[in-house]
């Protein structure tokens, strides 16, 4: 198979093969994807977790013999064949989000948001959805190692007992964590050793924010924004919608005031001041594009304009800037209902200034509250990390314990952590993979496999302080350890199970209730009272901030890979970037004007010539390092600036993430990690980039219909009126047709979907949720570049307005529209795609012979074809395909070569719901409204997707379809899509024009 060396399936393919499975591929569809042979996973899995169908190889009988492996002891409340749902929580950057996990016969296959949890409210972001794949990543390390030697748990315990004696000087390096248990152990450690240091290292964490608030209020405080209470929101480089500790809550709250269902409804207004186009920027009503280094200046100018404490008389380049002035006026006009935020990667001074501005807007207590974090160290952890590195190098420690984190890869260029490691006599690194840091351990250093959150006991606090317990869904697949287990082993010299450790922390609580609900009811951070004390300090710090006059490079955390921790996740690697739609790479993002300076034309003139196959490249010289990256033009990016993403170019991520993109960390400095002045030159080399959407413009077609709030109020049905459907209309209000069409029976529900383009932020979580639910394969960069991506729901992105100036961006999720008069159906020669009585455009994989005619005739191009046997190399071959197979949803057929596939409205969920309803009611097979959700709908953090029975006139989806903003895509083709859209609105400040 043609391939690139860095793809998931290809590399699995290169490893030792498993004969049984290779034979299996000869059959078109394998048995239930949960099948296992022997091996580690099975011992853990079958005995403890239970039933599954196992393939027992091929005997001479007429058909391959299948074996059924029942439970030996039947677990409680397991009904074989029905999935179970358990509440747990996913820790990320020091906060946990409550989730509900679907398990099939003990295999966690899908995560959903926990509706009871205040920071999820049922929503999720891409990292949550993708996390199941991380659990089953075959590249995870398989056991404890010292140097190159495999070691047992007992060896490690013995080592801990002998090494971590009271007289030792021990350094601890951990990721940000709000785990009560971890911090309980942390406190025990404090007094345990002669000298011990604990540094929390989070490359893109909230440390700057805390330092900023410390500067402003005298103590570290976490600002908690209440977007739903704000009428005017101004973000200074804060991409709060991008996957992060608080993004789900933010999206929920932002969407709340964007669901304009009648002309009476109001809508908040979002200003974004940023350099690169971010997800949040695309949702802005006003976007002010400035270079990364100027964001702070713009903010200070605003602070001055608003008379914030400490900024009286402050002037800078943005003083008197029209946009800033209007922003100031608008914020002030919102009297109290205004909110200003800044990106966590902005320097502390900026966050201090934000605190001052919010105070000046009397937003404190209304749209923003401040929380005292129970486990935050007072010290500057960024500085502490640099100091620790120096101390380690100087041999001031006898031992170093790293709980997670990958400093060797993520540290900025001026911090040589690798060298420091070699100076430490005893090192322990807890990591899910043999990553860069584990690989750089001294020969006597210990690597301990780190448990995935779905296989460990733990606990933690959400961003707003809701306390949750993390319960495992499955036994650790590879004998992995959780942080708390390692810590307790270090303390006690013997391993104590995570369950007991957590239980100790939670003694006295309503344990079962917490496990059931996923959180301790009613827990949250109390709003701390704050007083702005540091005005002078803020001003000093603000005016000390560097600015860049010439070309500058901004280093931003990749929205999908963050600092590279998820680089081995094929789903994330293949998820198109929100703005660029690039997969599997990082590039040099720049504006058309800047790109023109390097001889790149935009939009790419295609007159009389085929588009170039590879992208031009630029060599960026920054901080004495040279980064060679492909040039990618982003309309609306600040001029004279380049943005690059971290997290790429990993060497020890695993077979998926290794060698993808370029590592930009060496070019960063700890003094100014966010931006640096640079020079760049076009180089001769070109580089292939796999982008799923080349075309930036909507070509003036009425695909995404948009109006201003005021325009909508004048003409509420503007969207429907935008297209005149030609020809006469029949009594049903449909354009007349040559045929008398089929009608649908009453005893079946009639499924339909509505997508609110005003609520949709374009985050792409629907794509990954769909991928997880429907066993959609990862196909790798080369295939994506060919245009063969398999996503069933994609998010289209269009730029509108002046591409060289400050264009706007709109998003449109496109699933299968399930047209009632589907053009795809009539052209299939073998009736493989037909229509069901409940109005679905069915795709029958096992009938499909793969003429691809249906895909050609689909006006929305939502059909996806298995050009190769993608699952073969991905599920069948490789060293232990069983592990990957465990991630599969047994309710969905795995599609093999030569078969067309597409969105089915999650028919497996619909059928289950119908059967269950019928069992419950005895006769009706129409599930009650809201009882059945599609994967994309359930995952969406802004509830932009409505789904239900349109034959029920009172169902939510029917009501949305009656809404004035409702319109059908390509209605004039008279294909009668079951999916419709609610038109997009923007709420521009009329003062700005």
């Amino acid at each position, binding site marked *: 198979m043609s391939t690139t060396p860095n793809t998931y399936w290809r590399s699995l393919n290169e490893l030792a093969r498993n004969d049984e499975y290779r034979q299996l591929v000869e059959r078109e569809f394998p048995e239930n994807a949960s099948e296992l042979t022997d091996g580690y996973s099975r011992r853990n899995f079958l005995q403890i977790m239970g039933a599954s169908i196992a393939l027992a190889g091929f005997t001479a009988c007429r058909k391959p013999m299948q074996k059924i492996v029942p439970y030996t002891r039947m677990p409680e409340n397991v009904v074989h064949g029905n999935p179970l749902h358990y509440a747990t929580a996913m820790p990320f950057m020091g906060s946990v989000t409550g989730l509900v996990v679907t398990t099939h016969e003990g295999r966690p296959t899908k995560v959903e948001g926990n509706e009871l949890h205040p920071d999820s409210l049922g929503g999720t972001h891409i990292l949550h959805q993708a996390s199941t794949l991380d659990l089953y990543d075959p590249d995870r390390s398989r056991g404890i190692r010292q140097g190159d030697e495999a070691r047992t748990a007992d060896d490690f315990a013995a080592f801990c007992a002998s090494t971590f004696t009271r007289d030792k000087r021990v350094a601890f390096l951990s990721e940000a964590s709000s785990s009560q248990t971890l911090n309980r152990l942390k406190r025990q450690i404090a007094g345990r050793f002669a000298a011990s240091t604990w540094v929390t290292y989070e490359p893109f964490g909230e440390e700057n924010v805390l330092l900023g608030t410390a500067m402003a209020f005298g103590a570290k405080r976490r600002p908690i924004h209440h977007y739903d209470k704000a009428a005017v929101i101004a973000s200074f480089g804060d991409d709060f919608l991008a996957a992060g500790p608080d993004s789900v809550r933010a999206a929920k709250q932002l969407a709340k005031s964007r669901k304009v269902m009648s002309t009476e409804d109001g809508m908040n207004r979002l200003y974004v001041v940023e350099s690169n186009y971010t997800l949040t920027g695309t949702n802005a009503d006003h976007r002010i594009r400035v270079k990364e280094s100027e964001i702070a200046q713009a903010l200070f100018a605003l602070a001055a304009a608003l008379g914030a404490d400490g900024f009286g008389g402050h002037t800078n380049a943005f003083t008197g800037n029209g946009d800033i002035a209007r922003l100031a006026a608008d914020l002030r006009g919102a009297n109290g209902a205004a909110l200003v935020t800044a990106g966590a990667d902005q320097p502390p001074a900026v966050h201090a200034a934000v605190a001052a501005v919010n105070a000046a807007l009397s937003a404190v207590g209304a749209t923003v509250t401040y929380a005292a974090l129970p486990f935050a160290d007072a010290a500057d952890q960024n500085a502490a990390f640099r100091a620790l590195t120096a101390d380690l190098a100087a041999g001031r420690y006898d031992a170093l314990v790293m709980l997670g984190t990958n400093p060797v890869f993520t540290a900025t260029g001026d911090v040589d952590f690798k060298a420091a490691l070699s100076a430490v006599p005893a090192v322990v690194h807890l990591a899910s993979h043999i990553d860069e840091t584990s690989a750089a351990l001294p020969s006597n250093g210990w690597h301990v496999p780190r448990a995935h959150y779905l296989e460990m006991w733990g606990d933690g606090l959400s961003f707003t302080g809701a306390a949750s317990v993390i319960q495992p869904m499955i036994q650790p697949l590879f004998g992995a350890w959780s942080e708390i287990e390692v810590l307790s082993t270090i303390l006690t010299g013997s391993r104590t199970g995570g369950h007991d450790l957590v239980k100790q922390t939670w003694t006295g609580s309503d344990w079962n209730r917490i496990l059931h609900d996923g959180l301790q009811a009613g827990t949250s951070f109390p709003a701390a009272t704050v007083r702005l004390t540091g005005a002078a300090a803020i001003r000093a710090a603000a005016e000390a901030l560097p600015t860049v006059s010439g070309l500058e490079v901004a280093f931003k955390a990749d929205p999908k890979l963050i600092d590279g921790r998820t680089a081995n996740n094929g789903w994330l690697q293949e998820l198109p970037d929100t703005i660029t739609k690039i997969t599997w790479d990082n590039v040099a993002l720049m504006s058309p004007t800047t790109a023109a300076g390097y001889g790149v034309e935009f939009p790419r003139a295609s007159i009389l010539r085929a588009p170039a196959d590879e992208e031009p490249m630029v060599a960026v010289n920054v901080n004495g390092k040279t980064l060679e990256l492909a040039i990618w033009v982003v309309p609306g990016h600040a001029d004279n600036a380049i943005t690059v993403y971290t997290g790429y170019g990993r060497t020890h991520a695993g077979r998926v993430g290794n060698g993808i993109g370029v590592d930009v960390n060496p070019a960063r400095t700890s003094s100014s990690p966010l931006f640096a002045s640079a020079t760049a030159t076009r180089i001769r080399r070109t580089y292939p980039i796999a982008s799923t959407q080349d075309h930036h413009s909507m070509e003036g077609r009425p695909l995404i219909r948009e109006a201003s709030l005021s325009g909508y109020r004048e003409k509420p049905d503007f969207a429907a009126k935008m297209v005149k459907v030609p020809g006469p209309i029949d009594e049903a209000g449909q354009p007349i047709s040559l045929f008398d069409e089929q009608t649908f029976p009453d005893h079946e529900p009639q499924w339909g979907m509505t997508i609110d383009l005003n609520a949709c932020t374009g985050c792409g979580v629907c794509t990954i949720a769909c991928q997880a639910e429907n066993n959609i394969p990862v196909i790798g960069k080369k295939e994506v570049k060919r245009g063969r991506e398999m996503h069933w729901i994609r998010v289209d992105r269009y730029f509108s307005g002046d591409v060289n100036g400050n264009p706007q961006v709109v998003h449109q999720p496109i699933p299968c529209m399930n047209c009632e008069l589907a053009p795809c*159906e009539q052209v299939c020669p073998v009736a493989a795609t037909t229509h069901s009585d409940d109005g679905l455009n069915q795709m029958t994989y096992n009938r499909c012979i793969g003429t*691809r005619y249906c895909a050609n005739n689909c006006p929305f191009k939502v059909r996806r074809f298995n050009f190769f046997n993608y699952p073969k190399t991905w599920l069948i071959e490789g060293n232990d395909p069983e592990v990957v197979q465990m991630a599969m949803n047994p309710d969905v057929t795995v599609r093999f070569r030569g078969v067309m596939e597409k969105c089915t409205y999650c028919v497996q969920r619909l059928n289950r719901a119908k059967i269950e309803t019928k069992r419950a009611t005895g006769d009706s097979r129409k599930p009650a409204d809201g009882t059945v959700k599609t994967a994309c709908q359930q995952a969406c953090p802004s509830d932009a997707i409505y789904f239900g029975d349109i034959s029920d006139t009172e169902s939510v989806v029917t009501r949305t379809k009656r809404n004035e903003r409702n319109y059908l895509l390509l209605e004039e083709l008279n294909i009668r899509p079951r999916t419709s859209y609610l038109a997009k609105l923007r709420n521009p400040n009329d003062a700005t024009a």
Partner: protein
Amino acid sequence: MSQSTYVPEEPLVKGNHTFASITSLIADIPEQPTPKWWYIAFGISNILLGVLLMSIGYLFWEGTGIWGITNPVGWGWAIINFVWWVGIGHAGTLISAILYLFRQGWRTAINRFAEAMTIFAVICALIFPGIHVGRIWLAYWMFPLPNGMQMWPNFNSPLLWDVFAVSTYFTVSLLFWFVGLVPDFATLRDRVKSKLAAKIYGFFALGWTGGNRQWQHYEKAYMLLAGLATPLVLSVHTIVSFDFAVSVIPGWHTTIFPPYFVAGAIFSGFAMVMTLMLIARKLYKLEDIMTLDHIEKVNMVILVTGNMVGFAYIMEFFIAWYSGVTYEKAAFINRAMGPYAWAYWTMFLCNVISPQFFWSKKMRRSITASFILSIVVNIGMWFERFVITVTSLAQDFLPSSWGYYSPTKWDMLTYLGTFGLFFTFFLLFLRFLPMVAIAEVKMVMPQADPHHTDAHKGDH
């Protein structure tokens, strides 16, 4: 051509030929020793045939992914080649059937190998619908066979219509060809020295005696077949055009397609006939039978059909503009000015501009010009199918899913391979079968007329 005075038709057979000399001119070719060029040509064709088999084998092994096809362009060279080869086939049937009904005596010189060309071209075409599907081993589901699933094909699908149309077309052409061959098989049976050859030809002659009681039914059957083949050949490319016309894709969804495709088919077919004819007549010294008049007549057909095609091209643009449909307009602007403009203008040059040379009699009667242009036209017609198939798909309704299609080496090798298949068959035909319909040529000679007295014999 305005002319008032009657100009007597040029005699169809040049040179001083008797029935016997005609017979030997054609029927003795299989007897003569195999010329060296034949072996060389046959060797090359076989190598190409090998390439075809290899690339199909690899396709079976790996899947259609080895081709350039992708989203949104689900059909690439496979379908292009299919339409192209079927189109070429049409000339044969047209010559043998339609010209027969119109009593065009001159057809007799070229109908035999034109029909042969049809059959071989259709074989090449038929390969593609079979192998371009994702699960080749299940392609038989396209036929209405009773089965345990109680499933039947979808008779609404143009692709299914294709299956019926093209297979019917192939069967009927084959029968037509064979019926025409029967009397000539008899001739060979009665001439060849070798007993084995005589037995083989004799077997296919089915015991033909040339008795008038046979000729009576034979002529009737031939006439009926011609009558059936005529609407059939028109229907075949009409239905092929439905593959596109029945869809909703701008650039495909067009009512002009059926006549436009049929004209195009005849256009390319005649060009191919011309190419082959010029080679055959040179190699086998058949100048007396395939005369310059024949060449000129073929060129006229090329000119006429070429202009019909050109008209269609321009009409498409007019309709796109006249329809006022955004997507339709965009589709055609993209054809002429989009990323595939190079293909579009190649097509336009080859199919519309180049035939215009044939307005001049000098060109029409020039061997070289005819040969070059015939090849140019076939290139052009391939590009026509490329433009229709690819450009329409590459840029349809939603700009978000616009893409660019480019073929892989496997696309090219497969296409190249079909030439191997075609010429392998064709060379075998030239070598072992009478490449001109002997009996029919005799029929159009003056002596054949029972009222033609001896006095006129041999005077032209």
